[in-house]
């Protein structure tokens, strides 16, 4: 892109630069979504985990949180279960 001079970009901190920022964030996000291996198993996973836990403790659906975080070289499967206070 050396073709284009960019001395103009300096002074414009206007809606155009806002548009650019928003697009860059959005598109980066959409691309990372696409590259996720299989986020579609998450709901099922969440459901099954909930089932297992319920054998021992009663937890609510909203107390189980499953997440996949994308790292540079690896993805992290994050599992967050909030146990109720006075169970057992």
């Amino acid at each position, binding site marked *: 892109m050396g073709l284009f001079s960019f001395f103009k970009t300096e002074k414009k901190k206007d809606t*155009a630069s806002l548009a*650019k920022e928003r697009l860059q964030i959005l598109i980066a996000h*959409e691309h990372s979504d696409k590259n996720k291996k299989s986020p579609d198993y998450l709901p099922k996973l969440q459901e099954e985990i909930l089932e297992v836990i319920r054998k021992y403790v009663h937890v609510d659906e909203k107390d189980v949180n499953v997440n996949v975080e994308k790292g540079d070289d690896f993805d992290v499967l994050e599992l967050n279960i909030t146990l109720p206070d006075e169970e057992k």
Partner: protein
Amino acid sequence: MSKVIVVTSGKGGVGKTTSSAAFAAGLAAKGHKTAVIDFDVGLRNLDLIMGVERRVVYDFVNVINGEATLKQALIKDKRVDNLYILPASQTRDKDALNKEGVESVINELKDDGFDYIVCDSPAGIERGAFMALYFADEAIIVTNPEVSSVRDSDRILGILQSRSKKAEEGGTIKEHLLITRYSPNRVEGGDMLSMDDIVEILSIPLIGVIPESGAVLQASNSGNPVILDTESTAGQAYSDVVDRFLGEEVALRFIEAEVEKKGFFKKLFG
């Protein structure tokens, strides 16, 4: 060797048909036998933009269904030699297009010695758009300097890179970014994305920038591809696009803000 070029964008109303008409007419004017196909089944408009709406007898779907021959359906342009238009069907639904049918029409055009087959895609990412891009060797992505258009272009690029025939065979479609409705004055004023911004975001090579121009509406009013209006900035910019596509090195024009120039009220669109 004939080449199939899809003109696509994802978003509607950004200038796909205008660009297809101009591009195809420009290629033909340079002596290349060119066909331009309207893939917008049910909402055909290329015929109107090219001023041949009253000469449509048979259409693309008729040919696919064997109700007419390709020769019967192709409309030969009266202004430009070597230019042929294949209109879309106005009555059928989008499912009328299928891979086999589209491929057979494209192959027949190739066998008939067409150098370039320009596929004017409908908006969206559904069947018609998919069919228009599936057999493409190259793609022209028409983008307005506006957030939703840029985002949709990115989306379409993803589809080109994953679901086209070329991609399925492990190859790549050559991509060209065409920015339309560009207002250098508004870019200068900071309220329009600059071409550099768009190139940076989409990261595909730029083939041209078409300035916002009253000539585009006048051309469509009269059914003439705007590239034939050689006086207009838009016409000249399209003609540069054709030259660049054919391998010439042509500097970008009409991209600098001008002190006093028309197109001032135009800018309130959308």
